[in-house]
């Protein structure tokens, strides 16, 4: 079932009617049934893996909690009898047991993810080593289809289990509620990767049909469809042409083309989020936002706090902090602090953590060296900025640059957007060598285009649909600009009712005129991750 199909819309409205018709206490069951039906309609066999994840996470969470509870009541019953040392010993023993359960479940679930996502890549690397030593390579006969949303639901579920282990939340006692948390249909294919406490509050509370939620949700969904079906899908053929033929273009044309890709991926991914946040809003459910005007960021680190926010938060919470605060990082930090001073000692632990985070982030996005290098380049910029912070401060003070200066901020935004775009296109050419060739071409081909068609060779023709897409992209820019300071929706709702209806009708006509023919060409970019 394609998200951009009429079938999906009918499915959503059908589920919504049932959702509001049944007693409020069992509304979540409708969501579960809809989620299972949605998953099965897209990927029948994949549902078994979803069940494996839900079952292991459910069982382990309860097991971990039961050990903690037993310990607590044992301490309470024997308060007078146990010495401090005895208590510490029992605590250590139980903690080991809880850790073993956690690690086993994490290994199992990440193991499944790795098999489906990285087996071909691992085999390629093994064959590379074999061929270096002159051996005969292993034939790749593995034919595995990656289950829908496995990267997303595995991260979300394991995050929940770690939270139970850290005692940040109570485990869910109802298996089917855990299954809904793992498989909730609006977010299983591309996220957001939600926090259990926040999402469970939304999923399991009672929801009343409200005109405001319905209208807000519908408008957002329509805007999401426009972003995805009109902007992203229309631009996708131009971007495809760029990645295939950039060697025939001038360097400046290839450079401009990379910005088309930036617009495409943003419209595609944030469009999906708008569709799903809109769908959820119509159910009275609020999903965690995944974007916050990322292209207006003033640094790469800020960009990653605004783009795919929930993935960044997941890595921060479950990889960055645990690694940066691990005994080994602390030990290295302490040693370097003694030798090189406080700044170096305190910057080493986050540096170690960032190296790991960006390696894993690269791998998460795709099983290829191009993505690993892409992650490495992002990490390198962030780590470099962190280390150079004192130098930047001195330079800024010497040059009398004020952080609040609008001109300086505009420069920072533009610089970050260009950097992010150049980094972003790197893995999209298809291979490590392809990405490097594109970069080389951009910076080494200085030929001046003789005409507009040579400047924009990937644009077939400045037609009416092209102009409409360009105008909508312009509107997307204004929308993001407004959203930085004010809520666009509030402003929109201040307009007279007739104006709003007219605007929505125009949007609908644009989707029908340009979006529907273009949408049949492909799915969502992030669904491949």
């Amino acid at each position, binding site marked *: 079932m394609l998200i951009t199909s009429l079938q999906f819309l009918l499915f959503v409205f059908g589920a919504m009617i049932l959702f509001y018709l049944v007693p409020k206490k069992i509304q979540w069951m409708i969501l579960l049934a809809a989620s299972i039906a949605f998953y099965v309609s897209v990927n029948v066999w994949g549902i078994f893996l979803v069940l494996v994840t839900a079952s292991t996470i459910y069982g382990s969470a309860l097991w971990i909690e039961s050990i903690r509870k037993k310990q607590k009541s044992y301490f309470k019953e024997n308060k007078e009898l146990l010495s401090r040392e005895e208590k510490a010993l029992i605590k250590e023993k139980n903690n080991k047991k809880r850790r073993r359960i956690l690690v086993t479940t994490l290994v199992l679930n990440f193991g499944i993810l790795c098999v489906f996502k990285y087996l071909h890549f691992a085999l390629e690397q093994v064959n590379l080593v074999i061929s270096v030593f002159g051996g005969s390579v292993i034939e790749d006969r593995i034919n595995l289809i990656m289950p829908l949303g496995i990267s997303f639901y595995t991260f979300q579920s394991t995050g929940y289990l770690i939270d139970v282990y*850290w*005692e*940040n939340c109570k485990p869910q006692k109802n298996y089917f509620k855990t299954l809904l948390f793992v498989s909730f249909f609006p977010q299983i294919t591309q996220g957001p990767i939600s926090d259990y406490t926040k999402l469970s509050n939304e999923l399991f509370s009672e929801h009343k049909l409200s005109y405001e939620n319905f209208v807000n949700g519908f408008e957002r969904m329509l805007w999401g469809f426009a972003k995805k079906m009109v902007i992203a899908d229309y631009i996708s053929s131009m971007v495809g042409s760029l990645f295939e033929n950039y060697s025939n273009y001038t360097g400046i044309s290839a450079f401009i083309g990379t910005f088309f890709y930036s617009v495409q991926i943003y419209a595609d991914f944030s469009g999906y989020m708008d569709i799903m946040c809109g769908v959820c809003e119509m159910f009275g459910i609020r999903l965690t936002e995944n974007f916050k005007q990322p292209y207006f960021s003033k640094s790469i*680190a800020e960009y990653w*706090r605004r783009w795919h926010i929930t993935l960044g938060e997941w890595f*921060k*919470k479950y990889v*960055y*902090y*645990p690694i*940066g*605060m691990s005994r080994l990082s602390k030990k290295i*930090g302490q040693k370097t602090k003694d030798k090189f001073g406080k700044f170096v*000692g*305190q*910057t080493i*632990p*986050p540096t170690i953590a960032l190296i790991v985070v960006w390696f894993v982030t690269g791998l998460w996005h795709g099983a290829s060296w191009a993505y690993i290098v892409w992650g490495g380049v992002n990490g390198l910029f962030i780590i470099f900025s*962190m280390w150079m912070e004192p130098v930047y401060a001195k330079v800024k003070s010497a040059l009398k640059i004020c952080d609040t200066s609008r001109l300086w901020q505009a420069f920072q935004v533009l610089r970050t957007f260009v950097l992010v775009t150049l980094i972003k296109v790197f893995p999209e050419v298809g291979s490590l060598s392809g990405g490097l060739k594109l970069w080389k071409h951009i910076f080494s081909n200085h030929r001046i285009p003789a005409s507009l068609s040579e400047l924009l060779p990937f644009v077939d023709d400045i037609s009416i649909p092209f102009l409409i897409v360009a105008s909508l992209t312009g509107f997307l820019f204004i929308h993001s600009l407004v959203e930085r300071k004010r809520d666009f929706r509030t402003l929109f709702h201040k307009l007279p009712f007739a104006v709003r209806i007219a605007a929505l009708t125009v949007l609908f006509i644009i989707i029908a005129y340009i979006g529907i023919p273009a949408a049949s060409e492909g799915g969502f970019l992030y669904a491949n991750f």
Partner: protein
Amino acid sequence: MDELLNILNEINPDIDYMTETNLIDGKMIDSFSIFKLIDDICETFDIDIGPKWMRNENFNSVHAMWDMIQAIQNEDE
């Protein structure tokens, strides 16, 4: 509490820590500075802050940090 305020003032002296309740969510302390903050807190109060305490709400205000320090100290006992 004064020791904690000194640590925070070293990171950014321009913030009124007694009233600010949005230090992390408001990005006034970023994920790099927080390592410096934790290192100084651990050294000053002789505690070990594990990743389970790394929740925004524990670092959003000086009072929340103070409560966390006391909770860790009680847990260690």
